[in-house]
């Protein structure tokens, strides 16, 4: 594809570069692919959110509220499957990453644009296959597909696991693309030590995607064969080992947690220095911590299995290694706070989301220690404590960071500004709603309420009810964000090319960016956060 040579002056940008639906569907421009990913993942986020609201509404009181047990089981399965495989995994890397990684390294595109487009369609195909089961008997295994239930269930687990299998390839393609892009396409002068931390985070994420995703591909494939013809590797009724499935599953799915969280940390790494007008405190330590987390993430999966009849030696090893996740995570959290020290803190919406992220993620991280400790995990695992913990990490970590990133980069993507006041208020609603929803779940869990329960003892009613009220607050807050953000695309105030006075390369071009990102490839002479404000 030879590129178009007529750039019609200043107003030419990637949005008006080609016209018509095909110029989007067949585009090789990483920015447009990023936008397509953005809308698609947000669409699935909407579906997953509806499922979440239904689950929470069912739990507003003990007994049957709005649906039967089977419908409830399907609702939480779809909530988990959609949110994990179709939303949080691709959300930041494939949407924001696709758009901004090439720009931040000063490249015109990712290394393999066609592979990039293929990754989008593979994702779409997998997601369509998995969600189409809504109309084909549904699925009720929970997103973890534990054997032997997933083998025995009469619902349509086969199609969903094949959907996950296909989406895995999309994730691998994205990761592969990013690795090569960062290795080979950095702008002159952009040494590793000048690379923005968002790129570092995406780089570590990509490595995990390439190394771990093939294992889930194989696992889902084996589960499919197990259901289709009974190959007996995981099915105890045929002499297989159901706990082996859990090993295979978590060898991917634990690192996958970091596929979800690391890009979020990357976004926060961009926001905090920019709005503190100060370089990142301990840049090298921050970059190393990202890699430390990524590496350790591969050898801790067994902490999901402390009560699974796993051997005590494995429990010992996994608990010990898991403890070391806390160290690089601590380094990052302390580093963010220290970056604010003696800075000039500007209270704009992205920074508010960064505050919210710090608050929520710290709770998520600290409660992780409860679950890494053997004895306390025995009591807390499989209860609402775990549900609260991973929502604090995934929603608190990833979604808060994503919202922060959206507000940070929205003017760059569309060239228009959103309403700052509304954005700040919506941020407050989401933050409060989030804590009202999930904090009671810690208490529920420590008091013993198991997860995935359709019905519960009356003593848990008050906390569940509080949690349900909170879910409405989150829903309302997100809806509000959607309204003013979409309004901003069409009617928002025109944004300048660098409204936040940031130093990274994506801000050194027009808003919205030019079709090839830069008219001339920039030369980098300094670190990403050397603001030198006068």
């Amino acid at each position, binding site marked *: 594809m030879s590129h178009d040579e007529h750039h019609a002056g200043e107003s030419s940008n990637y949005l008006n570069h080609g016209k018509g639906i095909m110029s989007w569907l067949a585009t090789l421009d990483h920015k447009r692919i990023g936008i397509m990913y953005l809308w698609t993942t947000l669409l699935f986020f909407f579906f997953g959110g509806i499922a979440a609201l239904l689950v929470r509404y069912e739990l507003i009181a003990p007994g049957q509220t709005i649906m039967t047990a089977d419908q409830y089981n399907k609702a939480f399965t779809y909530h988990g499957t959609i949110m994990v495989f179709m939303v949080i995994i691709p959300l930041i890397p494939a949407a924001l990453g696709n758009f901004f990684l090439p720009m931040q390294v000063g490249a015109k595109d990712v290394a393999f644009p066609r592979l990039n487009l293929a990754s989008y369609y593979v994702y779409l195909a997998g997601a369509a296959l998995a969600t189409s089961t809504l109309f084909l008997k549904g699925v009720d295994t929970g997103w973890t597909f534990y054997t032997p239930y997933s083998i025995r269930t009469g619902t349509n687990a086969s199609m969903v696991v094949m959907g996950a299998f296909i989406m895995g390839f999309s994730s691998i393609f994205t990761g592969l693309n990013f690795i090569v892009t960062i290795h080979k396409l950095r702008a002159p002068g952009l040494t590793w030590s000048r690379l923005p931390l968002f790129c570092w985070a995406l780089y570590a994420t990509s490595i995990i995607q390439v190394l771990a995703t093939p294992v889930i591909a194989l696992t889902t494939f084996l589960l499919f064969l197990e259901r289709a013809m009974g190959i007996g590797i995981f099915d105890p009724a045929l002499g297989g080992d159901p706990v082996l499935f859990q090993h295979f599953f978590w060898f991917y799915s634990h690192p996958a947690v970091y596929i979800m969280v690391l890009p979020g940390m990357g976004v926060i790494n961009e926001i905090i220095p920019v709005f503190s007008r100060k370089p990142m405190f301990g840049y090298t330590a921050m970059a190393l911590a990202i890699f430390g987390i990524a590496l350790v993430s591969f050898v801790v999966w067994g902490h999901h299995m402390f009560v699974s009849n796993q*051997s005590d030696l494995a429990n010992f090893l996994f608990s010990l290694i898991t403890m070391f996740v806390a160290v690089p995570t601590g380094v990052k959290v302390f580093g963010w706070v220290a970056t604010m020290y003696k800075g000039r803190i500007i209270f704009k919406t992205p920074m508010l989301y960064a505050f919210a992220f710090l608050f929520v993620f710290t709770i998520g991280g600290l409660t992780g220690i409860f679950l890494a400790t053997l004895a306390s995990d025995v009591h807390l695992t499989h209860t609402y404590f775990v549900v609260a913990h991973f929502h604090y990490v995934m929603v608190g970590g990833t979604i808060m960071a994503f919202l922060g990133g959206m507000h940070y980069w929205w003017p760059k993507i569309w060239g228009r500004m959103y309403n700052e006041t509304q954005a700040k208020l919506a941020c407050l609603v989401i933050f409060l709603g989030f804590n009202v929803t999930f904090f009671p779940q810690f208490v529920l869990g420590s008091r013993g309420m198991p997860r995935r329960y359709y019905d519960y003892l009356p003593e848990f009613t008050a906390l569940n009810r509080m949690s349900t009220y909170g879910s409405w607050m989150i829903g309302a807050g997100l809806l509000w964000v959607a309204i003013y953000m979409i309004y901003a695309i069409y009617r928002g105030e025109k944004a300048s090319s660098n409204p936040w006075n940031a130093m990274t390369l994506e801000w050194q071009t027009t808003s919205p960016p030019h079709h090839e990102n830069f008219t001339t490839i920039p030369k980098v002479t300094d670190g990403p956060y050397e603001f030198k404000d006068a």
Partner: protein
Amino acid sequence: MSHDNHHSGGSHEEHKHHILPESMGIKIWLILLFFTFITVWIAQFDFGAWNFIIAMAVATFKATLVCMFFMGLKYDSKENVVIFCTSFLFVTFFMILTFADVLIRSDSIPKGEAFFKTASGPAKFKKPWNSTPEIVAHGKALFDAQCVTCHGSAGQGNGPASAGLNPKPRNFTATDGWKNGRKPSVIVGTLTKGLNSMPAFATLPAEDRWALAHYVTQFGPSIDKDSPADLTKAGVDTSKDVIGEVVSKSVPVDFVIERMSEDNR
């Protein structure tokens, strides 16, 4: 690795690409063939555990040759070498930590059914689609072991686990609510495919499913019999003594497609 710090002009153009000389390729090929022969030859001798170690050492040697020369890793950039070797590091993590559980678990060595039940030995009942006292007794034994938790020992659908189910488990003593009739062939179909919260019992041998069907029809006030047409519809060849699926020697593709289409129904 200064060359990858920036892709500014020059460094790549001057990079000379390594080309594998033909004579070298043929030499490697001969070595690979020789070691394939060694692997096969040495497998005839019994060295105990060493057989495996030798076989793996030879395979690794061969693999290294392929990597270094055919794939040119020896002449490739260090970056690519590191990238490729990383994969083996993570495979090692995967293996060691999984072994730390599975191989030393005291109470959880994978066991269970050694053989698929449909293939377990010769059929016990001839023409299991015909109800006989023997097969009904067999059905009762199976029912008491597998079904009473939900259906109750008197077949009234009120077993201890029924409280949580919606719709309620089938009450076999009542005649109403059977959409497809109460014939044994229909019940066998339900056992095979499952219905609502009733799981599929396809792993039970076909004759056991028939035995169960004959037993549960006894709970009802009347016994519906299968017509020959019903039996044909249920896939029974009445001219034979056993159900056709007991010994499966056909290509599994049909079986898989059938299971898949049931999944999607």
